[in-house]
């Protein structure tokens, strides 16, 4: 398919915005200035001001000589970028791929779009008219490459729509600046009397390279479409997206179920075709009152089975408020991964499908209870109990180090150690008795101490001396004393766990 690009040039972007905010300014000469080296220098002008001969890079004092009734506004450096981003998103109504082209332009990839507006002429006219209605002074052009569209939008004198085969002819009468060259190159060209692209574009390439550098050749190639000139879209297109418009607004759960089934069938068919599976999926519902509602699911491994995904969505249908009815559904899969070859090394189990069943169960639980409420742990090489385990990211992740069954550890570990009252012989003996939850435990047997140091490269603080103790009832606890014993200082004892 032929690629077509539309370049939009906002001639007075900042001033137009000020006039939109305050319509009283529109007939007055307006400049936007910022302090540079102790002077107020103009960075943007309005159409009225530029008619009076005021240009950018003048100082405000000079401009006031030309036009005493000048209005000066302060420059906000972040505003042009914000304005362009907002305008770029507005343009998504015309084409899905829009990019901003700083400092004052937009670049749209319109391939395959203009026929919906009955041709490129009408398309261009619609965009320009609607931007003018918003109060922006714009020029736009359509061409086969972004660079040519850019040049024609800013310097073109005749037609703004350049057919694919006439790009070279369109570029010939334009000034060298139309190729977006660096200032030293432009100065040199001016000195040599090259006022038009046509006067050097047919020169032999080695000559151009020697005199003006590689960049000029690159710009020429990009303008003529020999080299790629990629756009950075504002909203990256998602290839895994399906939409379903509804003839009548949908309000019933059954209707939503049918819609999900339809969308999943389409998206899963494509996924299966390419040997991929999705990890996350979002269903967006455009309601009749203009609001968007969405539900998301995640899976523990790449999935392309319709039935499984449908069950995950089914759990969340009741959270999707249809309001006055849903007009359009869009299913997106932001995370898509290659389907792994079937492997059952971790979960073993009976039958080859054990891992599959388990993955489906985990997805179902995660969908209902939330991602933080379904966890699996892997060992971490830390002795400090709070850091002994880490969360596994996926169902197939294997431990990098081994569990150490030699160390005696409590079955229940308190999330934070709780302070206890203890009577213990000094300095290093296990306690004789301790009081926890208002109950006195007399200790009969004890093991320890097992000193665990806080890792100084992670955090600072005292070490812990852990004791495994058993009281006269046969109950077993994990106690520790924080830090060294020192006379006269109250030493702090904690209970940290219960042994089986």
């Amino acid at each position, binding site marked *: 398919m032929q690629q077509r690009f539309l370049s939009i040039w906002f001639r007075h972007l900042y001033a137009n915005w000020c006039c939109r905010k305050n319509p009283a300014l529109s007939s007055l000469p307006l400049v936007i200035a910022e302090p540079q080296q102790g002077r107020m220098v103009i960075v943007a002008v309005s159409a009225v001001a530029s008619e009076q001969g005021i240009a950018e890079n003048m100082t405000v004092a000079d401009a006031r000589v030309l036009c005493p009734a000048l209005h000066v506004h302060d420059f906000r450096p972040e505003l042009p970028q914000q304005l362009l981003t907002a305008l770029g998103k507005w343009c998504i109504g015309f084409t899905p791929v829009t990019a901003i082209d700083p400092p004052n332009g937009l670049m749209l990839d319109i391939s395959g779009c203009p026929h919906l507006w009955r041709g490129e002429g009408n398309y261009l006219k619609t965009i320009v008219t609607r931007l003018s209605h918003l109060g922006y002074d714009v020029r736009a052009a359509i061409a086969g490459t972004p660079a040519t569209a850019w040049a024609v939008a800013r310097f073109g004198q005749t037609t703004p729509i350049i057919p694919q085969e006439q790009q070279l002819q369109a570029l010939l009468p334009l000034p060298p600046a139309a190729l977006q060259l660096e200032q030293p190159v432009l100065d040199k060209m001016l000195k040599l009397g090259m006022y038009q692209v046509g006067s050097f574009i047919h020169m032999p390439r080695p000559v151009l390279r020697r005199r003006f550098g590689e960049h000029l050749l690159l710009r020429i190639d990009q303008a003529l479409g020999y080299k790629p000139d990629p756009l950075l879209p504002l909203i990256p297109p998602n290839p895994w997206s399906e939409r379903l418009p509804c003839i009548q607004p949908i309000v019933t759960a059954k209707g939503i179920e049918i819609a999900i089934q339809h969308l999943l069938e389409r998206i899963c068919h494509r996924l299966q075709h390419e040997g991929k599976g999705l990890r996350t999926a979002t269903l967006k519902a455009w309601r009749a009152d203009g609001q968007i509602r969405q539900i998301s699911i995640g899976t523990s491994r790449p999935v392309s089975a319709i039935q499984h995904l449908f069950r995950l969505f089914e759990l969340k249908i009741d959270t999707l408020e249809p309001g006055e009815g849903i007009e359009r559904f869009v299913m997106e899969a932001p995370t898509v991964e290659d389907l792994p070859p079937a492997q059952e090394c971790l979960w073993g*189990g*009976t039958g080859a499908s*054990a891992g599959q069943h388990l993955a489906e169960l985990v997805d179902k*639980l995660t969908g209902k209870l939330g991602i933080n409420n379904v*966890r699996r742990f892997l060992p971490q090489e830390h002795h400090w109990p709070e850091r*002994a385990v880490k969360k596994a990211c996926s169902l197939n992740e294997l431990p990098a180090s081994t569990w150490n069954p030699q160390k005696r550890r409590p079955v229940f570990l308190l999330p934070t150690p709780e302070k206890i009252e203890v009577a213990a012989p000094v300095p290093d003996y296990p306690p004789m008795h301790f009081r926890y939850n208002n109950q006195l435990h007399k200790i009969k047997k004890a093991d320890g101490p097992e000193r665990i140091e806080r890792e100084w490269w992670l955090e600072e603080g005292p070490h812990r001396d852990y004791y495994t103790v058993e009281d006269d009832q046969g109950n077993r606890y994990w106690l520790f004393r924080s830090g060294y014993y020192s006379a006269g200082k109250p030493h702090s004892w904690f209970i940290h766990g219960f042994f089986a």
Partner: protein
Amino acid sequence: MKAEIIARLQREILPLQGFKPAQEPAIDMGWNELNNAFPNATFPLGAVHEFLSNTSEQAAATAGFVSGITGHLMARGGACLWLTSSRNVFPPALSNFGIDPHRVIFVHPRNENECHWAMEEALKTEGLAAVIASCSNISLTASRRLQLAVEQSGNTGFLLRHQPAGLNPVATIARWRISPLATQTDYNLPGVGFPRWNVELLKIRNGKPGTWQLEWTATGFRNIPSQPQAISVQQPWWQQQKTG
């Protein structure tokens, strides 16, 4: 001879009474005397077991006992699902009970209804070695649903009821209470020995309830005689120091 005939007759009676033995081969847990309490003298798999506990220490002992059984079950492969609303189970400790802690999936339901739902879904899933759920209260209806789920899939479930509001009838195959016992080291050396429990089997369908003392050693369960041998209980050495 007579005992043999009685055992054979019992095996025939059990299916007539509606007892369905699990399909998979029985597992030897190493607790010889305890096996006599169970129907067919095998630990009933493919069923839901109920465990009661009142104190945190009993709950920890129960978790240890259940982990020991689960370790035997997981030796044959498969995952374990542990449902608990409090996040206090410490995975590294499970490796002491023969479980690979990374093969345990911890699920934290936010209320009891979610716990029942999650346990039922897990019990329906094929290929799980065991499902452990800490859930204080359960109604007879909810427990029947669990029973139906295990009958379909053959999974084994452990329902740990900590401080239940009341002991309502529940459709489980067995009701246990595990409490910690004082440990004993070899040769009466000082220190804490292997975990030791008083195992009370309060109810068992088609079996004989009773009380046993078990110990979890490095190799598995070990039955200890209910009458402790006359061992001179030594005072801890620091107390001897004080008195002496």
